[in-house]
């Protein structure tokens, strides 16, 4: 009963701390905040309670230990949190000691956590519980980064940091002896000592399991090796447990050791030797297998970084794809404009001049008309080229940079426009052009669709972020998903990791925000 309380308390504490950690900063104020600050230290309560109960269940001891734990949690929360893993590990070691004592007959009954063992039954359950506590203790040790976690972490990292370059066939084939030994211990007719099946059924099950193991080895070498590693570790530990707890532990034979007929100590040590070999093989194989499954389990930070990089690469692939698309569409437009515009006019010009040349002697007046026509054509060709260049890279942007280019844009806008520029330096050319065209598009939309009377533009740069905000007092309801203008702008900005956000509730106002991360270079002088 008491341990049910301990269990509930433990689960409650862990769930609470994990939930709070998942929520992240900022911390809440008041009582909840204070409890949260104590965090993992709260686990000291169930640990103390369990220790008190096992130390004989003297009734005075439980309130006393709980009281000390509460005082520690309240007044030295950091120390309390650091005590928790060692408390749990201590309980685990205590559990193993209890089991051994009980097994060797030093004590007739044992109460360990949820197990109450009397008259030579239940030692294995005590061991299982101790094993669970041991794992939990190690996890907390690393999780809470308490003193002593460093060497453990370093050892673990060194252990895990081996075996690059995949799983070999030999490593996969290790599954065969593992399955063999497991069948010997757990197989039909044995089953940890319980004779469940026999005869033909047993042979069938043996055959099925072995076939499955072979299929797995050939289908997935990595998973076969994984199973082999897990089996080697478990069976290796089991060999040692047999030495310590025979005959409490089930099994008639362990490898080459016949436990059933001749349980002499020499045979038991044979089992221990085999267990050590298996354990060594398991420890050798496990990191190689984990390396196969995890990118870098030793370094969670690295794994997180790898995830970030993967995401980054995806974004870059997408934006580069968009950039290539945009650039090729742009090139096609320029080519077409040149072909249909300036080029065509220059051809016409040449033809007019040639015709004038022919007519010069015979009909000077007609020749004169053709020459003046040629002059007009050249004017129009120039005008075409001007428009084209403005669409590629506006001259003021080239001359003066972003601030003055937007200023020029504002001058050409048929709306009352307020411009507020706060740029201490100059923006890089491609970023400047992208932001310029974004502002131009937003401004054009305000003119064409919003019915606004005034527009406010704010250009600023802070914390490595170039920001342009265009606000109009129009009727709102602009949808960036409709129409290709803003979508194109968005794609172009994305090439520079920039974003475009539109907030336009029906009834207005419409706010367009453009943000691009970029550094500013030293300022050009913006006027003489």
């Amino acid at each position, binding site marked *: 009963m008491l341990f049910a309380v301990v269990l509930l308390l433990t689960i409650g504490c862990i769930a609470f701390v994990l939930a709070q950690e998942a929520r992240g900063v900022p911390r809440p104020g008041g009582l909840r905040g204070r409890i949260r600050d104590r965090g993992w230290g709260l686990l000291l309560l169930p640990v103390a309670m369990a220790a008190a109960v096992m130390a004989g269940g003297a009734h005075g001891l439980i309130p006393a230990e709980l009281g000390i734990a509460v005082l520690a949690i309240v007044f030295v929360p950091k120390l309390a949190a650091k005590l928790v893993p060692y408390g749990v590990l201590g309980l685990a070691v205590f559990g193993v000691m209890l089991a051994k004592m009980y097994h060797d007959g030093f004590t007739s009954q044992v109460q360990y956590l949820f197990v109450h063992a009397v008259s030579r039954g239940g030692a294995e359950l005590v061991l299982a519980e101790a094993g669970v506590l041991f794992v939990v203790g190690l996890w907390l040790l690393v999780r809470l980064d308490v003193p002593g976690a460093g060497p453990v972490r370093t050892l673990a990292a060194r252990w895990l940091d081996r075996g690059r370059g995949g799983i070999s066939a030999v490593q996969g084939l290790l599954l065969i002896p593992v399955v063999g030994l497991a069948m010997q211990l757990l197989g039909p007719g044995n089953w940890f000592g319980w004779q469940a099946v026999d005869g033909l059924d047993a042979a069938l099950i043996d055959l099925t399991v072995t076939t499955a193991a072979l299929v797995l080895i050939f289908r997935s070498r990595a998973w076969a090796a994984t199973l082999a590693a897990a089996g080697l570790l478990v069976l290796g530990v089991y060999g040692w447990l047999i030495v310590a707890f025979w005959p409490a532990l089930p099994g008639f034979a362990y490898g080459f050791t016949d436990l059933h007929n001749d349980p002499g100590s020499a045979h038991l040590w044979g089992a221990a030797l085999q267990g050590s070999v298996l354990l060594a093989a398991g420890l050798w194989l496990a990191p190689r297998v984990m390396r196969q499954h995890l990118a870098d389990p030793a370094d969670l930070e690295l794994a997180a970084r790898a995830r970030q990089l993967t995401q980054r690469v995806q974004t870059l692939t997408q934006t580069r794809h968009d950039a290539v698309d945009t650039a090729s569409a742009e090139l096609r437009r320029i080519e077409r404009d040149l072909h249909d515009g300036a080029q065509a006019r220059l051809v016409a010009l040449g033809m007019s001049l040639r015709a004038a040349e022919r007519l010069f002697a015979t009909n000077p007046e007609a020749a004169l008309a053709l020459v003046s026509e040629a002059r007009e054509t050249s004017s129009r060709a*120039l005008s075409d080229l001007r428009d084209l260049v403005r669409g590629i890279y506006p001259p003021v942007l*080239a001359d003066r940079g972003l601030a003055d280019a937007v*200023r020029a844009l504002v001058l050409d*806008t048929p709306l009352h426009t307020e411009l507020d520029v706060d740029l201490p330096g100059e923006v890089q050319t491609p970023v400047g052009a992208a932001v310029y065209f974004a502002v131009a598009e937003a401004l054009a939309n305000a003119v064409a669709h919003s019915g606004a009377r005034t527009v406010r533009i704010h250009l600023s740069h802070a914390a490595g972020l170039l920001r342009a905000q265009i606000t109009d007092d129009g009727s709102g309801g602009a949808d960036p998903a409709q129409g290709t203008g803003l979508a194109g702008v968005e794609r172009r900005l994305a090439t520079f990791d920039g974003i475009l956000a539109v907030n336009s509730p029906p009834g207005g106002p419409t706010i367009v925000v453009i943000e691009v991360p970029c550094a500013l270079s030293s300022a050009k002088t913006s*006027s003489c």
Partner: protein
Amino acid sequence: MRVVIGEDLFLLREGLVRLLSAHGFEVVAAVGTAPELLAALVDEHPDVGIVDVRLPPTHTDDGLRAALKARQRIPGLPVLVLSQYVERLYARELLADQAGGVGYLLKDRVFNDDQFTGAIRTVATGGTVLDPEVIGKLLERHSRTEPLTRLTAREREVLALMAEGRSNAAIAQRLFITEKAISKHAAGIFDKLGLALSDDDNRRVLAVLAYLDS
């Protein structure tokens, strides 16, 4: 009339020299970079400087800056700025000192040598000549905005032609009305823009500036 030319493209520079010489202008210096241009404008003190906006060394708006600097040293030094593009931002900067004697034209206006030399003469005598393309954009814009809305349509038309640097006589001819009517419109424009009675040329500059600034 003494002229200084600042143009970096050899073909255009030589073309301008030939064109202006043919029309009886005396080209005292034809240079290809902004520092040379500034020196020539200040040293030669020509009747008019003809300046390309984009010049070496940085190939941005060095020519324009040189022209503005020269006008700081010699207030009112007539400058006609030529460019492949016309930007109202630059027009405003040129007119900002309110001294007049400023022109700002697209390069292809050179094709029409009569108009071009006319513009040079207007600038040289303290007038203001803005490219029709600048004016066109202004007309679009002013159909919807303040403060020139008080002007009548006719007055706005007259103001636009004034900004292009045309004399009253030329405007009258263009609009098919008498010169006297133009004077009346001009007076109305000056009045509505709150420009006090003073030298007529200066008021014309101020009116154009108000037009650009609106």
